[in-house]
C-alpha cells in the first residue's frame, strides 16, 4: 500500500471567491433606494419652487412629476441594453469617451449635492420641530436652524458612509423600511388634509407665475424673455426639475436586481413613479391650498412641517402630526444620502472598469468586499459641501438642478443616437416609434429630448449659482478623469478590467459543503473565459430560491508544481471570474465561484460536486474530445473518489445550440 505514489490529480485546497457584487435585491428594495432620493424631494421642492416662481409651483411640480414617467421609460430602455449601465456607459457607447466623461462629471455633481441637500433639509425640519417643542416643555432655548442643519447633515452622512462600507444589502433593507413608513405617513397626512379641506373649503392654486428675486438669473433684465410665456413656463419647470433627482440610481442598482431582471425593473419603475408622483404632487398642492399665505412664507424651508401645523384639529394633535412628519422626513432625507453614495459608487465603478479611474480606487475593503475608497471620496466631498453651504437649502437646491438636468440631456441624446447606431433588437423601447421604410423614428424619445433641452438651456440662463458652480465642478471632475485616464494609459494598462474579488481559502475540499445552503445545488464547470455558455444555460433554468449555483474552475498545474497551491488568481482566471460575475448579474442570480488546482479537471469536478452535494453538474462540450468521452472520464473519477452519494446526480454536457449529452450518475 505504501509503495505506490498517488498522482497529484486530486484536489485538496479550494478557493472560494467572494464579492459584494453577487448580492441581489428585490424590485421593492431597488425602488426604495431610488425613492429615498426621488420621493424625499417632496420635503423641500415645494419651498424651493415657491421661492422661485410663486404659488403656481404645484402645477409645475405636477408637470415635472408627470414627465418623470417619461424619463423612467428612458431609463428602462437604457438599462435593458446595459446591465452595468448608467449615463456613462450609454453615452460612451453612443458618443464616445470624451462626451461620456463630461456627462458623468455633471452626474457626479448631482450625486455630491444630493446628499447635502437632503440631509441639510432634514436638519432644517428637525430644527423647526425642536423649536416648536421646546416651548411645550418649557425650555427657553431655540436652535439656529442653519447651524443645526449643518451638524445634523454631517452626522447623517457619516452614518450612511458606514452603512455603505458594510455593503448594499444592509442599506437597501433600511431604505425599504423608510419608504414603508413614508407611505404610512403620507396616508395619514393626506387623509387629514382631506378632512381639513372639507371643513374649510378648497381653492386650486393659481396658474400665474410670480418670479422671486434671482429666479430669472441672467434673464432678469432681458425684457423680451418676460413677454414670452413659453420661456416663463420653462423657467418654472426648471425650478421644479429637482423632483426627478435620483433616477440615475435606478440604472446603478439594476445590476443588483434579482431575476427576472427586466420584469423587475419595470415593476420598480412603476412603483417609483406612483409613489413619487402621489407624494410630491399632493403634498405641494395641499401645502399651497391649506397653509395660509403669510404662515407659509415662514415654513418654506420646512413646508410639510408647516402643512402639519396648519391642519384642522387640537394643537397637541397637530404637534404629534408635525413630529411624525418630521421624523419620517428626517429618515427619508437621510436615506437620500445613502442613495447618493450608492449611485456615486456605481458611477465610479463604471469609470474604473473603463480605465478612467486609477485602479487604486477599486480595491475592495478586506472585510466587507466593498469599493471603500470610492465611497470615502464621495462622502468627503459631501461633507465639504455641507460645511460650505452653511445650511441653506435654497442655495443647494438651485445648484443641484444643474447636474440632474444635464445628465438627463446626455442620456436621452445618447439613447437617440444608439437607436440609429445600434440596430440590435432591444428588450424594451420607449414607446411612440414610427417606422418609415427601414428607418424607425424615435418620436417618443425626441419629444423627451426637446423638453429636456429647453429646460436645460433655460436653467443655464436663469440659475446663476447652478450654472457657475456646475460648470466649475464639472470641469474639475472632467480634468481629474482625463488626467487619471492618461496616467493609466501611460502605465500601459491594456489588460481588460477584472472584477476585484476576495479569496477565501479552504484547506480541505470537504469544507465546501458549507458554502451551498439551498436544497438544490448545481455545479457548473467553466474553463474558458470566452465560453460562458454552460453558465448561461444553468442560470436560465435554475430556481434561485431553491438552488445554489457553484461555478467551478479547475486550474491545471504540472505535477512538479503541485502541492495544492492555489496562490492568487492569474490574469486569465481573473478574466474568467469577471465574466462569471457579469453573467450572474445579467440574470440577477447569485453564484458561488470556486477555484481548485488539479491535473485532471474530471477529478476536480467530481470531487467538488460530491463535496458540495451537487444535484446537477453542467459543463461545456469539448470540441477536441467529444461529449461521450468527457462523461466517461467523469463517471470513472466519480467512482474512484470513493464517496457515497445519497442521490442521483444529473449531468449535462452542453454545446452552443443545445444539450449535447445528458445522463444520471448514481
Amino acid at each position, binding site marked *: *500500500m505504501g509503495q*505506490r*505514489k*498517488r*498522482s*497529484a*490529480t*486530486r484536489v485538496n485546497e479550494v478557493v472560494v471567491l467572494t464579492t459584494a457584487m453577487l448580492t441581489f435585491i*428585490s424590485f421593492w428594495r431597488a425602488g426604495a433606494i431610488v425613492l429615498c432620493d426621488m420621493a424625499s424631494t417632496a420635503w423641500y421642492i415645494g419651498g424651493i419652487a415657491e421661492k422661485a416662481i410663486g404659488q403656481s409651483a404645484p402645477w409645475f411640480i405636477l408637470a415635472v412629476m408627470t414627465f418623470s414617467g417619461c424619463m423612467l421609460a428612458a431609463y428602462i430602455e437604457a438599462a435593458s441594453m446595459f446591465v452595468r449601465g448608467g449615463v456613462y456607459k450609454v453615452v460612451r457607447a453612443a458618443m464616445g469617451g470624451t462626451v461620456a466623461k463630461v456627462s458623468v462629471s455633471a452626474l457626479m455633481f448631482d450625486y455630491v449635492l444630493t446628499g447635502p441637500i437632503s440631509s441639510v433639509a432634514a436638519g432644517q425640519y428637525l430644527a423647526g420641530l425642536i423649536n416648536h417643542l421646546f416651548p411645550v416643555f418649557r425650555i427657553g432655548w431655540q436652535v439656529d436652524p442653519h447651524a443645526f442643519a449643518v451638524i445634523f447633515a454631517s452626522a447623517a452622512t457619516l452614518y450612511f458612509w458606514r452603512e455603505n462600507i458594510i455593503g448594499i444589502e444592509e442599506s437597501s433593507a433600511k431604505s425599504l423600511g423608510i419608504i414603508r413608513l413614508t407611505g404610512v405617513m403620507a396616508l395619514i397626512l393626506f387623509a387629514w388634509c382631506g378632512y381639513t379641506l372639507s371643513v374649510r373649503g378648497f381653492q386650486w392654486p393659481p396658474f400665474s407665475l410670480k418670479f422671486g428675486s434671482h429666479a430669472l438669473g441672467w434673464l432678469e433684465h432681458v425684457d423680451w424673455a418676460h413677454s414670452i410665456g413659453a420661456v416663463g413656463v420653462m423657467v418654472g419647470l426648471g425650478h421644479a426639475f429637482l423632483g426627478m433627482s435620483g433616477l440615475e440610481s435606478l440604472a446603478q442598482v439594476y445590476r443588483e436586481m434579482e*431575476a*427576472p431582471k427586466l*420584469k423587475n425593473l419595470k*415593476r420598480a419603475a412603476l*412603483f417609483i413613479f406612483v409613489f413619487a408622483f402621489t407624494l410630491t404632487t399632493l403634498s405641494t398642492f395641499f401645502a399651497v391650498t391649506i397653509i395660509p399665505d403669510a404662515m407659509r412664507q415662514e415654513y418654506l424651508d420646512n413646508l410639510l412641517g408647516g402643512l402639519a401645523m396648519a391642519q384642522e384639529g387640537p394643537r397637541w394633535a397637530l404637534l404629534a402630526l408635525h413630529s411624525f412628519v418630521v421624523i419620517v422626513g428626517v429618515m427619508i432625507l437621510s436615506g437620500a444620502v445613502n442613495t447618493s453614495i450608492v449611485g456615486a459608487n456605481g458611477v465610479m465603478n463604471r469609470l474604473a472598469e473603463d480605465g478612467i479611474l486609477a485602479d487604486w480606487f477599486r480595491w475592495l475593503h478586506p472585510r466587507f468586499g466593498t469599493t471603500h475608497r470610492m465611497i470615502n471620496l464621495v462622502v468627503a466631498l459631501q461633507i465639504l459641501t455641507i460645511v460650505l453651504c452653511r445650511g441653506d437649502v435654497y442655495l443647494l437646491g438651485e445648484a443641484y438642478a444643474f447636474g440632474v438636468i444635464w445628465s438627463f440631456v446626455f442620456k436621452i441624446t445618447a439613447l437617440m443616437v444608439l437607436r440609429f447606431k445600434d440596430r440590435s433588437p432591444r428588450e424594451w423601447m420607449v414607446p411612440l416609434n414610427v417606422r418609415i421604410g427601414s428607418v424607425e423614428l424615435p418620436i417618443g424619445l425626441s419629444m423627451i429630448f426637446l423638453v429636456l433641452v429647453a429646460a436645460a438651456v433655460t436653467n443655464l440662463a436663469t440659475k446663476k449659482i447652478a450654472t457657475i458652480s456646475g460648470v466649475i465642478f464639472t470641469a474639475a471632475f472632467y480634468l481629474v478623469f482625463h488626467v487619471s485616464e492618461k496616467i493609466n494609459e501611460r502605465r500601459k494598462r491594456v489588460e481588460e478590467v477584472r472584477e476585484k474579488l476576495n479569496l477565501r481559502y479552504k484547506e480541505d475540499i470537504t469544507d465546501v459543503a458549507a458554502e451551498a445552503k439551498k436544497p438544490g445545488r448545481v455545479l457548473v464547470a467553466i474553463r474558458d473565459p470566452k465560453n460562458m455558455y454552460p453558465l448561461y*444555460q444553468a442560470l*436560465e*433554468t*435554475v*430556481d*434561485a*430560491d431553491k438552488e445554489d449555483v457553484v461555478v467551478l474552475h479547475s486550474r491545471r498545474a504540472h*505535477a512538479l508544481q503541485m502541492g495544492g497551491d492555489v496562490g492568487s488568481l492569474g490574469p486569465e482566471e481573473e478574466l474568467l471570474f469577471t465574466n462569471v460575475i457579469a453573467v450572474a448579474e445579467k440574470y440577477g442570480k447569485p453564484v458561488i465561484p470556486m477555484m481548485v488546482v488539479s491535473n*485532471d479537471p*474530471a*477529478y476536480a469536478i467530481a470531487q467538488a460536486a460530491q463535496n458540495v452535494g451537487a444535484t446537477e453538474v453542467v459543463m461545456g462540450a469539448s470540441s477536441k*474530445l*467529444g*461529449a*461521450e*468521452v*468527457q*462523461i*466517461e*472520464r467523469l*463517471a*470513472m*473519477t*466519480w*467512482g*474512484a473518489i*470513493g464517496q457515497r452519494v445519497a442521490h*442521483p446526480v*444529473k449531468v449535462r454536457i*452542453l*454545446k452552443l*445550440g*443545445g*444539450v*449535447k*449529452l*445528458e*445522463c*444520471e*450518475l*448514481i
Partner: protein
Amino acid sequence: MVDWFKKSKDKKAPPAEKSAKTVEPRVSTATAKSVAIGKILSPDLVLLLPGEKDKGKVVELLVTRLCTVKNFKDSSAFLKKVMEREQGISTTLDTGLSLPHARIDGITDIAAILGVLPQGIQDPVQPDMTIRAMFLFFSPNIPSAFSHHLHLLRHVSAVFQPDFIDQLTSASHPAEVLELIRRKEAS
C-alpha cells in the same frame, strides 16, 4: 394590479432539447440496470500478469483472450477500437486501475476481462500513475446502452480502490481474484 406586484417565481425555460439542435443522440436518463462485476467475469476472463511491463501489450493480450472466450471474430478490429479510444482522455485512474474499453457495433451485452498486474506498469501517457489492475471491456454501441456503460465505469472505479487492488495483487489464482470481487460487491 396586486398580482403584478407579487414576486413572481422564475419561469423555467422550456427544455433546451425542444428548441435546440442536438448533434448526437441524447442518452436516456432512465436509471440503468445494476451492474455486477462478479457476474460479468468468469475465471477464464481473469488473468494474472506478473511479468508484463508494456501497457499496449497487456491491452492486446486482454483483447485477444476476451475475443477468444466470447467467440468474437476479428479481434484486430476490436483492438483497433480500444486503441482509438485510448487516444482520447486517459482511462487510467490514480487508484491504480485502468479501464480501456470500446463501444462495438453488433454486440448485445457487455463483455469484460480483468488483468491483474502485481508489479504494476507505468502508464505511458501519465507516467506518475502506475497501473496494477486493468479492466478491459466492450459495450454495445447503441444509445440505450450508454447509461449502462457509464454505470459500469463508475461501479468498477468505485470497487477497485487501492486497498482492494492490493488484495487482488496478492491473489495467486484467477478464481481467488473473482471470489474477492464477488465478496466485495456483496458487502
